[in-house]
């Protein structure tokens, strides 16, 4: 009976899928463009969830007429309402686009420079010129000392004054590296003692007048240094007291109109907060710029001078996100401690969300007990890896993707290519499907693409749905808030809807925008009927309108008979109508054990209540019949025994 049912179901499926193929043939894509995975991790063809609406590129925007510069290696997108910001990194600019009612993108402005308040700049200028003068004075003093030493024949010595002077210098956000700083005191210790001894002995080697002149020059240099030092300290104090926001002084200059401007240099990412302030990861200028909507500087975030930040590394912010409290999180190149976090007032407050280092037991035992010290020193330490990209959702959770993991860890949910970080940096992504969100579940490694999906960017839609972009095969993977794959599509190639160097993804409502850094364009996808039905079904379900949602899921099933989420959604709705056995069927098709169990429990209860008399009857029969048989046998036996006893008597 069941097999017949099953066969009928299969037949229905076949007929329905045949129908959908014809229904979606006019979409302009082969049906293998969109796909999904079934319970057995088998590839399942699906109708298209998205179609290409437009391609936004240099010519469609008319950039040639504006300033004759086409896109060059754009790196990032940011959507703020109807505004789209594109980081045209190769051209050192950010292009702001706006979508109009006809769904066309128009350039509203091109950001290339940041302007700052002139008074701030002057403060910074006097301070930095003082700092330069101070440096020159130090150099002059050192030269004078060297000359004197040459004349007297002693080794070059450093006066005691240099140590405090140098440390003073490094307090300023200049590009002094700690390595230089560290060398200074060491020389001091070694030579301070020897110099004092050797000076009086070898003084006679040069003529006295020359020595006198040199000593005088040294005195003068020292005096001048002292004076400038005082001035520099005063300037710095004034700078701090004034609330100056220029910290990366080298990046600023006055233009021909006398305005203080700073040219962006390879901006890799842009973000806009709720107040309209624009944040730019100005990577080659080693800073994150915070400016108001008219491009006036509000703050410059520069390299943290904190000891936790590796001072030998440059501060190269690649990706930034801003939360509702105006805190800035930056993903920096060569920094593997997690995201750099700046408070609202611009102070560095540490790292969050470091990739935890996973050490396997075998690895540990091998390293600890079987390797020599030299071997241990040579093998790499267990270092965490960097993230690839970050995105902040409506609730302030940061979604991070990582592309460094071993293939074997993927399906065991150890690799975690997509993470949702809470404020403590812990991954709290919900994974309720039987496989974690890892993109492709199985793959054929060919010449063009090898290995698993590598997510280069992620965007979070409303209702917690998220879409991750795979750079290996140019694919987009949509997941719902429970981590169940909604659809996957995309490919590599040159036609519309295919990518060569997909680098960034954003969304506007349910439309998806994908930036290609090699094709230098933005592909705008809009959901097809199939895609938007899925979305509205999920939305109505989350609103609690289960019956409406079931109707929508039925529509989805008409387009794709193998859609697990639809089975589950209808099952939930049917179960709410107290049709338990029907709900069980749906859940079974969805391979949802927990929900099936719940439906089955209710079904069992109902069944027992309905058949309680039969059950009692059967149980009674099972108990009574053997009892009766046993009794009768026993009686027979007793009778026989009685006869025997009679005989014996």
């Amino acid at each position, binding site marked *: 009976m069941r097999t017949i049912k099953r066969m009928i179901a299969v037949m229905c499926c076949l007929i329905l899928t045949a129908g959908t193929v014809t229904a979606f043939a006019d979409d302009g894509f082969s049906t293998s463009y969109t796909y999904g995975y079934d319970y057995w991790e088998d590839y399942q063809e699906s109708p298209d969830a998205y179609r290409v609406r437009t391609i936004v590129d240099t010519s469609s925007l008319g950039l040639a007429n504006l300033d004759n510069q086409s896109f060059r290696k754009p790196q990032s997108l940011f959507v703020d309402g109807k505004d789209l910001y594109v980081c045209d990194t190769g051209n050192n600019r950010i292009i702001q686009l706006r979508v109009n009612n006809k769904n066309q993108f128009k350039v509203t402005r091109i950001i290339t420079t940041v302007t700052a308040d002139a008074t701030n700049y002057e403060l910074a200028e006097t301070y930095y010129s003082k700092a330069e003068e101070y440096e020159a004075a130090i150099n002059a003093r050192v030269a004078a000392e060297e000359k004197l030493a040459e004349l007297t024949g002693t080794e070059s010595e450093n006066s005691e004054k240099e140590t405090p002077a140098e440390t003073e210098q490094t307090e300023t956000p200049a590009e002094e590296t700690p390595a230089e700083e560290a060398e200074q005191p060491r020389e001091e210790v070694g030579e301070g003692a020897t110099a004092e001894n050797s000076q009086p002995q070898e003084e006679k080697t040069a003529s006295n007048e020359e020595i006198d002149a040199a000593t005088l020059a040294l005195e003068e240099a020292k005096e001048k240094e002292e004076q400038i030092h005082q001035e520099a300290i005063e300037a710095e104090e004034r700078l701090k007291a004034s609330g100056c926001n220029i910290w990366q002084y080298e990046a600023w200059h006055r233009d021909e109109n006398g305005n203080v401007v700073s040219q962006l240099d390879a901006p890799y990412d842009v973000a806009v907060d709720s107040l309209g302030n624009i944040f730019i990861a100005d990577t080659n200028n080693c800073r994150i710029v915070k400016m108001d909507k008219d491009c006036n500087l509000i703050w410059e975030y520069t390299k943290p001078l904190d000891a936790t930040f590796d001072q030998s590394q440059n501060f190269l912010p690649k990706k930034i996100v801003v939360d509702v409290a105006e805190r800035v999180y930056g993903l920096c190149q060569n920094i593997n401690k997690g995201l750099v976090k700046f408070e609202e007032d611009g102070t560095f407050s540490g790292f969050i969300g470091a990739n935890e280092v996973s050490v396997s037991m075998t690895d540990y035992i091998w390293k600890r007990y079987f390797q020599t010290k030299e071997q241990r020193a040579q093998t790499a330490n267990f270092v965490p890896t960097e993230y690839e990209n970050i995105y902040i959702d409506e609730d302030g959770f940061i979604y991070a993707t990582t592309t460094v993991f071993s293939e074997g860890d993927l399906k065991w949910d150890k690799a975690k290519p997509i993470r949702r970080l809470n404020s403590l940096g812990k991954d709290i992504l919900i994974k309720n499907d039987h496989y974690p969100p890892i993109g492709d579940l199985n793959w054929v490694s060919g010449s063009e693409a090898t290995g698993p999906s590598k997510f280069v960017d992620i965007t979070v839609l409303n209702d917690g749905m998220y879409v991750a972009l795979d750079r290996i095969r140019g694919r987009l993977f949509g997941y719902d808030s429970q981590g169940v794959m909604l659809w996957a599509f995309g490919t590599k190639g040159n036609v519309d809807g295919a990518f060569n160097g997909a680098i960034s993804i954003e969304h506007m409502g349910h439309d998806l925008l994908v930036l290609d850094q090699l094709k230098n364009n933005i592909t705008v996808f809009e959901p097809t009927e199939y895609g938007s039905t899925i979305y509205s079904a999920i939305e109505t379900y989350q609103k609690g309108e289960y019956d409406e949602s079931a109707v929508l899921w039925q529509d989805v099933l008409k387009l794709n008979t193998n859609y697990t989420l639809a089975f589950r959604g209808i099952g939930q709705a049917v179960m709410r109508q107290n049709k338990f056995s029907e709900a069980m069927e749906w859940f079974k098709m969805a391979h949802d*054990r927990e929900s*099936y169990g719940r439906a*089955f*429990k209710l079904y*069992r209860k109902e069944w027992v209540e309905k058949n309680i008399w039969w059950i009692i009857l059967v149980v009674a029969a099972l108990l009574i019949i053997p009892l009766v048989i046993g009794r009768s046998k026993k009686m027979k036996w007793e009778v026989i025994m009685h006869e025997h006893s009679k005989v014996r008597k």
Partner: protein
Amino acid sequence: MSIAKSASKSMKPARNLSARAEKRKAWRSRYFASLKYSLYVITHPFDGFWDLIHEKRGTIAAANTFLILFLITRVLKLLLTSFQFIMAPVQYINIFEEMGSLALPFIILCLANWAMTTLFDGKGRFKDIYMAMCYALVPYILIQIPMILVSNMLTYEEGSFYSVLLSFSVIWCVFLVFVGLMQIHDYGPGKTFIFLIVTVFGAAVIIFLLLVFFSLLQDALSYFLSLYREIVFRLN
């Protein structure tokens, strides 16, 4: 005493009809007695296994029955257990493959055990080992077949009850294997344990030898095939 033997006997022209019928009847009663005896074996393994061999209370026919029942149980379990507990990829399952993948290791392990214990004064013959191993499978059959039914009456949350009984059946079987080998070979528990491990290695060696044998056979065949082709080519 096996089915095959009795079948071959029955093929012969009947000399004495009543004698043949009587023999068959005797065989049948012995067969059923040995089937029933398995219940004694699994509940009293020390006595049971000793008598199974030394008092000749077991039959190979019963052992074969248990092995076949075990394989059938296995397949039934995959196909009929509620999907809440076992998700078998039904579309990929090949019943005979599934059975073979259990029966073949079983036979190889018996063979390896026999090969190893014969060298170290084990008393059991191959027939005895095979019989004891098959009798040790009985708890698996007895528990798992009802559990298939029970699984369809349980919900996912009540699954612990199901899994506890399943693991109980397996533990029972392992215990029976251990005791059975101990009694057959007249070993102490320590020696039995060591020989259980040695048996696994022996099985690995057997598999290795089989693989080598077949690959060499393949090479030899391909050599002669190419030789033949060469000759044909030259003759033409």
